[in-house]
Each structure stands twice: as C-alpha cells, then as structure tokens.
C-alpha cells in the first residue's frame, strides 16, 4: 500500500484544492485521509456523507471534586500554567490554560483531583462523491491537532484500504512543522509539496522540506500560481534542483481555481486547460510512487 502525502507549510497555496482534484482523478482507486484537521476544508469539495462518527479523546484535563477539596491551594501553587485560579473561595480549573501535566493531582493531599481524557472532537468515515471513502475529523474550538489524531485518521483510512483492497491512500497533510506534520509524514511513501512563488511560499517550503528530508521520504513539488513572480520562481526552481526534489508541475495563476471551488467543484471538473496540467501531474506522481498509470 502506498501513502501519498500532500503538504505545503504555508496556507493558501492550493494544497487542498489540488488534493481534492487528485481524489477526483483517482476515483475509487484510492482512500482519502484529511489530516489538515485545523482547517479541514476538503469535505466542501467532495461531499462526504458523515456516515460513521466517533468521539476522539486526546490529552488530559484536571478536574477538582469540590466536595472533597480542602482548599489548601497546593494544586494552584505547583501549577506552572496559572490554570487553577481561586474563584469565590473555590479552586477552579481553567480548561483553556490546563496543559494536562497531572502535577496538581499528584500533590493534592486529599486526592480531590483526577485527570480525565479530553474529548477534543470527532472523526468521521464517509462515502464521498468521487466514489470512495474519506476519513476526516473535526476539532472543537481551542483543541489542538496532535500526532495522535493524525495517526488515528490515517490508521482508519488504512483499515478501509486494506478491507477494500485499495493500493493508495491520499493524505491532505497538516500545516506547519510540528508534531501533526511529523505524524502526517510518518509512513509516507511519497510527499507532494505544494508551494507558490511568493517570498513566504519559498520560505515555508524550505522549512517543511527540512522535515521531509529528515525522514528520507522521496518528494516532488508543485509550483502553483507559477507566473506570479519570475524572480522567486527562479529561486524555487534552483532550490528544487539543489535538493533533488522532483519538479512535478508549474500551474500558472488561474482564477478558475477559485471559480471551481465556489461552485463546489475541483479544477479538473471545471477548467480544461488547468485540468490537463493537473492530470499530467497526478500521472507523474503515480510514476514516482511506482504505480501503473
């Protein structure tokens, strides 16, 4: 089984639009995993039915049983996150500030504090309009994406792929360079980096590529909106050449991408010129991954 992970570092480069377009091209050959949980947008283009839903728990939260609490203040004294203010004579855990370190529970002399697993959101298994399954998730406000949630989404996608005999998992990866991205990349067969020739696009590409390189994962790059700036484009090309990153495609700035999204479509269903480029690109990715095109 092959895992193709699409990441970008910077937001707004067209990562999700392109991933959704690949999903349309691949149809029922693949299983889709949306690990961009902080801004999970792919569902807007592929119409999931949210058929299966489960609560997801991650991290801990301290809870004080007020009936047992002797108000000695030991918990607040050891808390480094100022998460246990005293309100009207009662020590109350501030859920947003609590890091779940568990120190307070360990020092409470009357054992009034327990740590509970936090319900941070839900994950879903859906049928989508491209004729396949997508695993995705939604987080509550203030909840953090984590390596654990990304691993969960990917594992469920793998389980579906195994059951249905699918060869490819297409992953919309997490943004940034933290734990969720590491988890997105873990197990990847191939990474597709999506960038744009802007100073921020180049900057963030370099940062996220450091991670891909550390894992030794084969990767290729799509330069979206490629004609925005010739100087940065030249710099991007040079960077790809220097790092031995496959140069998968250059897609010129095209407002039809937005028009497609506005109509709930992917670019391959909307604009024939751009569709050709994206189709070629998907074929090349399949070749890199070692799949028959």
């Amino acid at each position: 089984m092959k895992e193709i992970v699409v990441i970008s570092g910077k937001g707004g480069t067209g990562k999700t639009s392109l991933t959704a377009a690949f999903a349309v091209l691949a149809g029922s050959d693949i299983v889709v995993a949306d690990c961009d949980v902080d801004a999970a947008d792919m569902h807007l283009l592929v119409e999931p039915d949210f058929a299966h839903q489960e609560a997801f728990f991650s991290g801990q939260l301290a809870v004080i049983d007020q009936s047992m609490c002797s108000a000695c203040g030991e918990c607040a004294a050891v808390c480094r996150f100022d998460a246990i203010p005293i309100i009207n004579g009662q020590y109350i855990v501030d859920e947003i500030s609590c890091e779940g370190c568990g120190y307070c529970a360990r020092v409470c002399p009357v054992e009034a504090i327990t740590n509970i697993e936090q319900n941070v959101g839900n994950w879903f298994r859906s049928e989508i309009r491209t004729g396949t399954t997508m695993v995705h998730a939604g987080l509550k406000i203030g909840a953090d994406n984590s390596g654990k949630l990304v691993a969960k989404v990917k594992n469920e996608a793998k389980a579906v792929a195994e059951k249905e005999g699918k060869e490819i998992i297409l992953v919309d990866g997490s943004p940034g360079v933290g734990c969720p991205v590491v988890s997105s990349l873990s197990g990847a067969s191939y990474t597709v980096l999506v960038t744009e020739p802007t100073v921020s696009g180049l900057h963030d590409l370099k940062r996220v590529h450091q991670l891909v390189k550390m894992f030794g994962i084969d990767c290729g790059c799509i330069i979206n909106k490629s004609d925005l700036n010739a100087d940065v484009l030249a710099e991007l090309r040079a960077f790809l050449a220097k790092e031995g990153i496959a140069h998968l495609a250059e897609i010129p700035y095209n407002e039809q991408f937005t028009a497609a999204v506005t109509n709930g479509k992917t670019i391959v269903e909307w604009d024939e010129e751009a569709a050709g480029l994206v189709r070629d690109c998907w074929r090349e990715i399949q070749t890199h991954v070692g799949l028959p095109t």
Partner: protein
Amino acid sequence: MKIAIASGKGGTGKTTLSTNLATFMAESANVVLTDLDVEEPNSGLFVQGELLHSEPKNKMIPHWEKENCSLCGNCQKVCNFNAILKMGDSIMVFPELCHGCYACCELCPTESLPMQPKQMGELKHFRAGDLDFVESRLMISEEQAVPLIKQTIDYVDANFPADTFKIFDAPPGTSCPVIEATKDADLVLLITEPTPFGLHDLKLAVETVRQLGKPFGVVLNRHGIGDDKVPAYCAAEGIPLVACIPNSRKIAETYAAGQLLYRDIPEVKAAVETVAAFIRDHNGGESS
C-alpha cells in the same frame, strides 16, 4: 489598544492586512506590529527594518545530574508527555516534548533534575521607518508555540506604553496558539476570502472569538472573486464587514515580491483607511 488579526484558514491575507495596516497607521500614530505566527512568521518579509534588539527565548526543562540519582524512575512516571525516560542507567530528557510543568524536578526524591533554561526560539525587534516590528520564531521541531507567544506578548507589553496601537498577526486556525494570541486583544479582525473554504473557516473563527467574548469585525480579501456568501453571512449574523480588499492580479504579484500594497494600489489604501477608522472608533475615538 491591542488589535489581533486572525483567520480560520491560512493564506487568506492575514499578513497582507497586518503589515499594510500597521505601516499605514504608523504614519500618524505609535504602532507596534507583532508577528505571533511563530511557526511560520512571515510579516518580516514585508516589513524590513533596522534590527534594534534580539534575544533568545527560553523555556525551562529538567537537566539530569547523575551524582545523586538513584534511578528510581519516578521522573518518567510523573511525566505525562513522554519527555523524560529512564534508559538503562541514565535519564534522557526530550526538550521539544517537555511542557515545563516542573513535576519531575520537584518530585525527584534526590533533587537530581534541576530546571535549566533551554532556547526554544528567538525574538527580534526592528524599527522600520515609523513602525516598530517584533517577531518571534520557534525553532524547528519545537512543539509548543504557546509559551513563545506568551513571552512575545509580555515583551510588547513591557516595552510599549498602553496607548500604543499594538497589532498582533495571530497564527491561523482555532487551536490554543490562536487563543493565546487573541485572548488579551481589545478588538479582533478576522480576514477571509469569498470562497466556500473562506466562509467555512470564518464561521469557525467567529465561534472562537465569540467564545472569548471579544468585539470583532470581518475584512474580506480577494473581493470580487468567488461568491457573495461571506457578506450575506456577516449581514445575517450582524457582524460588521469592515472593508473589502479587491481581487487583482497586481495585488497578488506585489505580494509575491514581498512588497507592501497600500502605497501603490489605491483600493488597498482605501480599505486600510477604513479598517484604521474602525479601530479608532473602537478605541473610543482617542487618537492613541
């Protein structure tokens, strides 16, 4: 006055708005722009200035002193983050995973784990014309943005008087770092674009800001592309749609080159002026 500029989704123009707005307002007031998107700070690409000051930003992590250690393993047991492990006859600390809760240090029976500073990022303070600009950058593979965001806000609070316009470029999303970056703000500006993605993520951002109980307004970027569902949503929800930045290829190109927009593009200047007036209104009309 503190103004946070946030967006649910990345890439909607948060940095464009904050850099242009801050530079514009600095022409007639005291303004400090702070980039709190510490994982991917990009404002500095648009606002170049003279470096006035830089300092390493540290977090406290345990440091193992083996002399008295009895290898009891209590440190590993009390760590909820897998940040400290007993391996054979040594104790290993993983700084990126450590949240700095001090449990291992203070609960160690032999006091073998004193806390020591470890660099997690760097803060830089620039002066660009009339504008002060502060940015912090998290070191790669560091996991926790929140402590660095907190320390950066503390720096700004300590170094600029209360009557300064403090504009914070917040990280994208709706998770802890965004909350840390917006929870002290007097006013939040949410920037989005007129697409289904933009609308969906705007709704999440609105929910976040409402939960924090902050006054807020929306700025629509790339106006003219996409559809009109964002203005319709704002109207239905009674959310002020403060200004619209038009969609244009020239804007995209100018941004790509790392340049500010408002001096060359009158529509952007008009939008930025409207936003500045909205901010001043919320400041009780004071000139600060």
